[in-house]
């Protein structure tokens, strides 16, 4: 019986095995990069809002602290989105005719809340509490990035589990004195790891517990 494949097919078959490996690898690489990209995670992608609110203007330009609007950050799981009343505290007097702010004025007139779009939307199966983080020296900036220079608001962290664990495994990399949590100009000391370990001890952060499943998935 004659051979089904001509001997020259050996090259073709080897080449195709190699090529399929390359293709599978390439697809995997594209998939991985896509999973890490802003298309999937939303990182560095400004979110469209009913009013183009600029943190840069309010924080850097005017020196308003995070806590002026996000009032529950030190006490509750949710940092708080300000009611229209807070916006109108200044904007009843300033930029009163600006068309950009009409949705804010309309909200105040009609008592219908502005519908801001959530920028950081954790999956429902992950538990998160702002207060424990800020009270243990995790600054806003560590997770939210340089909000003080964001003319529109975007995520600067993926909020993926690997990202959470990076810090939960070694909080000394990012921890800072509690007095500095709102300070965007803070510069970590050269010996951050040693300094961080001291703070971890001082604030009684139980690092071993931080990687327990039930810490975040309760």
């Amino acid at each position, binding site marked *: 019986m004659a051979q089904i494949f001509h001997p020259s097919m050996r090259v073709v078959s080897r080449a195709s095995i190699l090529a399929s490996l390359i293709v599978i690898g390439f697809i995997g690489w594209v998939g991985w990069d896509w999973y890490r990209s802003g298309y999937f995670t939303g990182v560095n992608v400004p979110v469209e809002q009913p009013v183009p609110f600029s943190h840069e203007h309010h924080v850097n330009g*005017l020196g308003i*602290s995070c806590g002026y609007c996000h009032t529950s950050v030190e006490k509750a799981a949710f940092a708080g989105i300000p009611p229209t*009343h807070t916006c109108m505290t200044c904007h009843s007097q300033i930029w009163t005719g600006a068309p950009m702010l009409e949705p804010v004025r309309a909200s105040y007139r009609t008592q219908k*809340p502005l519908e801001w779009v959530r920028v950081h939307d954790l999956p*429902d199966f992950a538990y998160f509490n702002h207060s424990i983080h800020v009270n243990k020296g995790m600054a806003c900036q560590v997770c939210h990035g340089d909000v003080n220079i964001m003319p529109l608001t975007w995520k600067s962290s993926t909020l993926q589990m690997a990202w959470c664990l990076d810090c939960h495994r070694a909080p000394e990399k990012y921890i800072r004195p509690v007095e500095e949590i709102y300070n965007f100009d803070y510069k970590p000391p050269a010996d951050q790891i040693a300094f961080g370990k001291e703070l971890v001890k001082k604030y009684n952060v139980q690092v071993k517990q931080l990687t327990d499943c039930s810490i975040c998935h309760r």
Partner: protein
Amino acid sequence: MRSAIRHIGALSVAALLLTSCNDMYDGARIKPLERSNFFADGSSSRPLPEGTVARGHAVNNDLLSTGKLDGTLADAFPFAITDSVIARGQDRYTTFCTPCHGRLGDGNGMIVQRGFPRPNSFHTDSLRARPAGYFFDVMTNGFGRMYSYAASVPVHDRWAIVAYIRALQLSQRATVTMLPDNDKKQLP
């Protein structure tokens, strides 16, 4: 026929994948301030029904929650003022008051520099003569163009701010003889 079955199969697998992806990410749980179609106003958070008070938020007609004693603004504090209360007051004052009143309390904050009507300086005779309860009352109910801060600043923090305003008033009129010895040494 076979291709139709295949199509339906592929579609249902795709549908299953799509729905199963989102189910756990967005479960039957309401995040704070999340939209909900359950109530007619589209909001998941409920406004307080009129006449009700949230547990622990009772506003009794006393000094702590009104700044008044027997109906008149009182020049007294409802709890002891310690260093830590003043430090808390400074922290809260810096966050909530400096935008207009400025760090010194002279009414030249950044928002004023950007066009907000200038509030009175805390260092005028008339404001120094005001009772402590007056400042509490202004923070709670607003005054002139200043809106109420009752929603942003809890009662105890408002009193801490009053204490810090008193410290500011003192600081702008202090004489060298009033300084503790340690501070005197630091003078040039």
